[in-house]
């Protein structure tokens, strides 16, 4: 196991160290005293496990293709941009524009997330990304979503804010969004249908949430006690008349 003290280190040097360690066959790396360094985990392949202590900077795990990143605190904006494979586990909150164009792999967040999470995610059959959020999300959750799975849990019952913001699934044309509790139709894009999950859905949820609960030592039965709604794109051309008059 390799430890790197990132205190005061410029992102370029830090990421070079991580890359060369992985090139030398290192499988377990801990980055200590990280604060704000950009691009951690970007474009990395293989199956190394990287633990980040401190708040990593923007553009974490962009184009990542295999490794597992564990973030022990909050994380910032633009995580998992076009990520292809691997896993990111965030033990705090995360910012805006998570999983932009994400095409595979898993993003687990224990806390809240910001705006535009899961924007333009895409997936097909075996190659399908998943984002699970334990807290609340801002506006544009799943905007332009084309594939994959988004699960939003709202586990902090003391949080007075609504579980999700406005423009939910706007422009969505593929994939599925599961939201724990009720969903206000007024918040959804015109193409979004709100459905009751069927047995297959519940099986899918249990499968994904089982993994999520293991990461954060949560009880899946507690989570499943409350019902879910499933959001799917149901209209093919909801804006067909937008420019027609």
């Amino acid at each position, binding site marked *: 196991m390799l430890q790197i003290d990132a205190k005061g280190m410029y992102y370029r040097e830090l990421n070079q160290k991580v890359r060369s360690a992985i090139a030398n066959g290192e499988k377990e790396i801990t980055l200590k005293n990280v*604060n*704000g360094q950009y691009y951690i985990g970007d474009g990395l392949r293989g199956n190394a496990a990287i633990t980040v202590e401190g708040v990593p900077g923007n553009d974490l795990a962009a184009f990542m293709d295999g490794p597992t990143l564990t973030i022990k605190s909050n994380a910032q904006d633009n995580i998992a941009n076009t990520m292809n494979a691997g896993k990111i586990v965030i033990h705090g909150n995360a910012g*805006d524009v998570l999983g932009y164009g994400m095409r595979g792999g898993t993003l687990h967040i224990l806390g809240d997330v910001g705006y535009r999470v899961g924007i333009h995610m895409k997936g097909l059959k075996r190659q399908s990304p998943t984002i699970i959020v334990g807290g609340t999300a801002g506006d544009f959750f799943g905007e332009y979503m084309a594939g994959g799975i988004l699960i939003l849990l709202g586990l902090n019952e003391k949080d007075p804010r609504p579980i999700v913001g406005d423009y939910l699934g706007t422009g969505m044309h593929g994939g599925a969004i599961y939201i724990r509790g009720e969903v206000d139709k007024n918040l959804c894009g015109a193409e979004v249908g709100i459905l009751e999950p069927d047995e297959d859905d519940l099986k899918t949820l249990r499968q994904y949430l089982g993994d999520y609960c293991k990461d954060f030592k949560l009880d899946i039965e507690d989570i499943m006690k409350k019902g879910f709604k499933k959001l799917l794109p149901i209209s093919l051309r909801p804006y067909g008349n937008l420019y027609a008059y």
Partner: protein
Amino acid sequence: MNNYFEKNIFVNHEGPIAKGKKAADKGLGYEKSISGCGLTGLISKNRTRLSGKAIVESLCLMNDRGNGLGAGYAAYGIYPGFKDFYAFHIMYDAPSVRWTAEEFLKANYHIEKIEEIPTFPVKAIAISPLLVRYFIKPLKEKLAGDVNESDFVVNSVMKINSEIDGAYVFSSGKNMGAFKGVGNPCDIAEFFRIEDYEGYIWTAHTRFPTNTPGWWGGAHPFTLLDWSIVHNGEISSYGINKRYLEMFGYKLTLLTDTEAAAYMLDLLIRRHGLDIATACTVLAAPFWKNIDNMDEQKKEALTALRLAYGSALLNGPFSLLFGHSNGLVGINDRIKLRPLVAATKNDLVYMASEESAIRAICPSPDKVWTPRAGEPVIVELNK
């Protein structure tokens, strides 16, 4: 457009540095900017004066958000010995301009003190305008009748900026000051020795100008009287805001959208008497569809506000911080197109573009949160 950039503004190793106005007069002014800037601010609610060292450290962590074409700092509580005087910071293209501006000041103000703003040689800042500060008070006879003192000062700032070619007032408040220029955050901090100042409110900014000039006057903060503003984003409504402000006598001469936001605060809060929360509702007004869902009373109030102040709405992506003599406010646009994080530790409140910029100077805050879109964080000094 490109020629203008090359000849007058971007190239700062030769020729005029603080120049810009002449070109604007010829209709070459720029009405728009898009930028990926970084901002940070802090306030001690108990008015503990803090060295500028912390804010410099916080801003320098976000060095890569800017591109070296503008950085600056504003601080409140830095001139306790002159707290009853307006502290004018003026940049001059050439020493000769100074005498023209000083003639104007002498004719209208009692001048307590004149000094060059202390600067220190920094290799990366090869050339700079002449930077002078004045501690001044309007002459009594100038305030005869119903002349409002603040209006008088604002008019002076507008007059110098628009009529004295090559002179720009970049700070005009009491017991506060802005320090800014073309350079990286660390270089500008070293140039002005920011850590030698002590203030209870600080804001700071690193700039990434893309379609307005990266010149000394275009660096943030933008200030007027006690208002100071740092901004990340693009005010797409600049043209509408500018024309609206001009109706009230403001003159926009600094070629950057953020200038409009600074004057808008002065108009809304000082002149029209809106409270800060209401002014924030004007700048980042709720969407009509949300207003339609409000209860009758709120709907009526917000409809009136949007109708009265349609031209004061800041459209486009922004996160911004503004300081004033009683506090610090952070706000972002209605659909959260720019980042803003807030944190508290004891009597200190921090706000920045990135959480790491706060943790750089406050490793374990009591509370960290990201304000939702259009939801202002309003912090006031304790009485």
